């Protein structure tokens, strides 16, 4: 297989397969959660489930004072790499074009040098996240193979993308093929790992807010 063939496989059938697994997997995972249902609360309500749930979806993004003091590094590094990933995936011009090809519409991009700088910051924050995971007593205790696998598969597109942009090591088609394949690997593994939190956290936060809000407590 030549590098051009590899690239066209990655952009063609590879992407299709990965996208199908990603979409079907995410839908199945969300469906299997919601299908379980939950019993209606029979106690007399002191507050609203719906509005408290919606509020918590937003408010849980910001930690309370004490938590920030105790888990500062986890929180700051977490903000950096999440925001960084968002900027790189959704605000980098070639990515927007790529998405536009698939879904038919696009949106304004950030200047490329800005995204390049964000990529560096994101890669560094991902390294901090890993160092924190391996050195923090609690995180080390909780860490399993999946945590390391998802870290690696999230880091891979960042690094391969950065290399592709700067033409490091290989020829452009090879670098781009590797980058796209690494994204496809991430998409394939996504529905079966904790990466699902990017979807399920909206449900989890809503439930948390609803449970508390029903009792009249803002969570």
């Amino acid at each position, binding site marked *: 297989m030549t590098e051009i063939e590899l690239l066209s496989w990655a952009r063609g059938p590879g992407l299709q397969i990965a996208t199908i697994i990603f979409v079907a997997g995410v839908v199945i995972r969300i469906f299997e959660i919601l299908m379980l249902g939950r019993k209606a609360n029979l106690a007399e309500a002191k507050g609203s489930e719906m509005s408290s749930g919606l509020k918590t979806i937003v408010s849980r993004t910001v930690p309370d004072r*004490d938590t920030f003091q105790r888990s500062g590094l986890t929180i700051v590094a977490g903000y950096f790499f999440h925001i960084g990933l968002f900027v790189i995936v959704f605000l980098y011009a070639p990515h927007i074009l790529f998405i536009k090809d698939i879904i038919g519409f696009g949106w304004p991009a950030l200047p490329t040098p800005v995204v390049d700088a964000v990529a560096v910051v994101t890669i560094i924050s991902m390294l901090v996240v890993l160092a924190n995971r391996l050195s923090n*007593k609690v995180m080390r205790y909780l860490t399993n193979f999946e945590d390391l696998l998802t870290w690696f598969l999230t880091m891979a597109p960042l690094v391969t993308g950065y290399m592709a942009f700067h033409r490091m090591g290989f020829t452009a088609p090879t670098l781009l093929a590797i980058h796209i394949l690494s994204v496809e690997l991430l998409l394939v593994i996504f529905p079966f790992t904790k990466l699902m939190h990017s979807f399920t956290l909206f449900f989890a936060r809503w439930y948390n807010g609803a449970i508390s809000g029903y009792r009249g407590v803002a969570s």
Partner: protein
Amino acid sequence: MSASLEKGINALKEQVDSTVAAFFSSCVHCGMCAQACLFFTETGDPSRTPINKTEPLRRIWKSEYTLFGRIGKILGLSKKVDEKLLTDWETLVYDSCTLCGRCSMVCPVGNDIALMIRKTREGMVAAGHAPEGLIGATTRAVTIGSPMGVTWKALSAQISHVEEDTGLKIPVDVEGVEYLLLLSSMEIMNFPEFIEAVAKIFDQTNSSWTISSEAFEATNSGIQIGASDIAAELVQRIVDVAEKLKVKTVISPECGHAYMAIRWDGPNLIGRPFLFKVRHILEVLDDLRTQGRLKISGKEARKLTYHDPCQISRRGGVIDEPRKLIDMFSDNFVEMPDGGKMNWCCGAGGGVSANERADEIRLKVFQRKKDQLDEVRPDAILSACSNCRIHLEDGLEEHNMDIPLLSLTETIAEHLEGSEV
């Protein structure tokens, strides 16, 4: 109550619903819940991280309720729930968690971890992995009607004392009144002043009320040990009496989990809404305050703080009421750092105080409360849970700290207009 691993696993399966599935699907192992838990912050033991305590429930969710997990189970790859796991987890689930719910407030993905641990207990007890102390309390609650073995005879004697001391009649088994007052065994045996306080307040505010000789116990060991069937039976006793006496409101006394049991879990345990209201005593007092019926005179000069009992504040929703009440008699009230919905647990709730095996760790984690108190340096601590009160007194004594613990209801009774000594 015969227990077996199979029953435990079935009980865990029954606990999985869309909330549990959304929560487990969202956990990213960030470890932030550990920092919200006094059993971790005061011991530094990572196995006490809240989310780790839910491992038995997580394994059941994963292997039974996820596609990938089910495939793994068929291939024999899934982690099993076995006797060893439950034995290893017993002290984490019971001795190292008060179900205080602080972890549920900080989890960045929104997991209600305390609820997950509460659900895990259902499986633990069904599999025979609950602490002796809690099993004893639960057995006494079912057979005698009180976890401490307090009988109507004992309460009746205390009522007579209160009547002698106050000259007030304590209504017993009266039909059609506004309030049915429940009591915790702890109040009956250690703090009968609480009954006296309620009698005085209801006398001044002209409220009609009663105590039932059939169902007076407010506590519910069933929800602490995690046995919903027993919890439902204990709730049903109160419901039967409240409906027979046709009371408008059942009052939960100064006890945290009793409020959770009757106010929030109660109707869900028995499977139907109540025909009466349930209110915490502080909500009732605050209602009387709003109506202008609760009249207070004189102000406290002492520096006061309020310890929020977890099940009443964070998990129960009674947060503003105590503060408004305290305002009535104090100009020198100081909040503890993290006071209110983020307050730190005393360390003895959720069945920990009924579990002798946890005595050592319960006093160790009191250090968190001590640190909070050291920042405020109050002259007295108000609270509204006799379990918190007993344990706080214990902890303060251990550290040679001489700060009196006051019941908020009793303190209000002392400040009633016309009751000044």
